[in-house]
């Protein structure tokens, strides 16, 4: 459905780099772009939306040329691309009510109301955006992105500012819309559980290039060989307790303590990124809270 081969020179925080991407995307795929910040994920979404130019290459969607630097025609404007775009900061128009935000994109009140109903916000249709919570704002923005039934839905870390419960609710909404309208969805995300739940394909970006293109399991599970568990974390502190060296490591917002031997204690420094893995033990799993 989408065929592209693009190049663009970027000047990021880590200096100059080249965004180079060659991709084939099928209709109905749910693609998640992940990778360290500054690797070109957002720029790629913006290029697809027509908000950013490219240096060379082409983008074709359903055989229609959106941009091709080899012919001299100008790129298809964002207005003409029939896409939905969810911004990190929601980008709701502050001067319009919830319903007006939707009908501004497409003047179809019935459909707007049914979208709001799908995400449980029909009662807030006359509310102004400033009175909504972050989660409500993003759901309104999602409905606005969907109202023109876009062929491609682009999501730029849409849930990063929300708390865990709200994230879960929105993940379900995004999934619902993706399936209901059979859109092709491309989302930037850092959250492994989100990637795992939603994606059908994950692209790992580094320095402007795709370094892995596979399913979520392959990209995310970091165990190798006979390891049962493997986590990456940041070393926060090394201290001595009697004759033992103890390392405090932060893994996904939780702190763990690990005993080090003396040679490791000398080798490691606070701030290092470390892998903690183990082979021979049987973990127990118990329920803490209902889903």
């Amino acid at each position, binding site marked *: 459905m989408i065929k592209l081969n693009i190049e663009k020179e970027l000047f990021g925080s880590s200096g100059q780099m080249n965004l180079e991407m060659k991709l084939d995307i099928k209709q109905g795929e749910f693609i998640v772009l992940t990778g360290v910040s500054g690797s070109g994920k957002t720029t790629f979404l913006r290029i697809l*939306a*027509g*908000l950013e130019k490219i240096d060379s290459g082409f983008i074709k969607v359903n055989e229609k040329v959106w941009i091709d630097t080899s012919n001299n025609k100008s790129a298809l*404007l*964002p*207005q*003409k691309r029939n*896409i*939905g*775009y969810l*911004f*990190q*900061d929601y*980008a*709701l*128009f*502050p*001067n319009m009510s919830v319903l007006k935000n939707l009908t*501004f*994109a*497409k003047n179809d009140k019935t459909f707007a109301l049914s979208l709001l109903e799908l995400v449980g916000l029909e009662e807030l249709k006359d509310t102004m955006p*400033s009175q909504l919570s972050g989660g409500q704002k993003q759901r309104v923005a999602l409905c*606005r*992105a969907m109202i*023109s039934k876009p062929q491609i839905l682009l999501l730029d870390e849409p849930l990063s500012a929300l708390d865990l419960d709200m994230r879960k609710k929105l993940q379900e909404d995004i999934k619902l819309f993706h399936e209901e309208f059979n859109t092709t969805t491309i989302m930037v995300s850092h959250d492994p559980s989100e990637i795992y739940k939603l994606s059908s394909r994950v692209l790992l970006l580094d320095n402007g290039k795709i370094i892995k293109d596979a399913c979520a399991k392959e990209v995310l599970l970091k165990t190798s060989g006979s390891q049962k568990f493997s986590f990456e974390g940041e070393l926060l502190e090394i201290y001595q307790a009697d004759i033992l060296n103890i390392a405090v490591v932060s893994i996904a917002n939780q702190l763990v303590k690990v005993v080090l031997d003396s040679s490791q204690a000398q080798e490691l420094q606070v701030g290092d990124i470390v892998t903690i893995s183990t082979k021979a033990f049987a973990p127990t799993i118990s329920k803490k809270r209902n889903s």
Partner: protein
Amino acid sequence: MFDLDFEPFLVSFKLAFYTTSILFVLCVPFAWYLSQTKSKIKPALEALTALPIVLPPTVIGFYILFALSVNSPIGIFFEETFGIKLVFNFTSLVIASCFYSLPFMVQPLQAAIQNMPKSLIEASYICGKNNFQTIWYVILPNIKPAVVTAVVTTFAHTIGEFGVVLMVGGSIPGETKVASIAIYEFVELLDYESAHIYSFFMISISFAVLFCVYYFNYKQRAKYD
């Protein structure tokens, strides 16, 4: 005091109304262009726009007089094609005022558009709207305090003009004799009483106008906080 001639005030307000209307229509697209462009001529355009703030009004007045006079190409063109003179009449006052008050309209609008989140403009594009629709439905309603500041200060600044008006308008009663000129003439004639009344009027009107702007902006800010 009621037999006082209020015509100069009417001329002042008429001039301010025309100037503000013309500048608003021209400056919204211009401020939009300045806020969006990455062109190298942007600093030059900004400097030109700001010139009337630093230049003595007589300089602007002198060049406008020079450019529009009956001996200049522009003056000759208008005289021959439309049969109108461009100096020492109300039209010339409006043209001169538009130059003189330009920064007061452009600068607040440009600053406000630049401070708007870029994503709002982009969201409007993705909603299928062109530049005109984006300016009208998204930008102007969301920079209301700046629009009010720009319109009102342009209006007030035009009312307060003196040097430029003196240079290009002369002092033709009912045509180019504005309030500020009238005060100057009263003082020259040692008619201090009339000068006092006119001046007091000017101060009252100016204060009321500025107070309204600041009060409106204060209220607007309170609404969003």
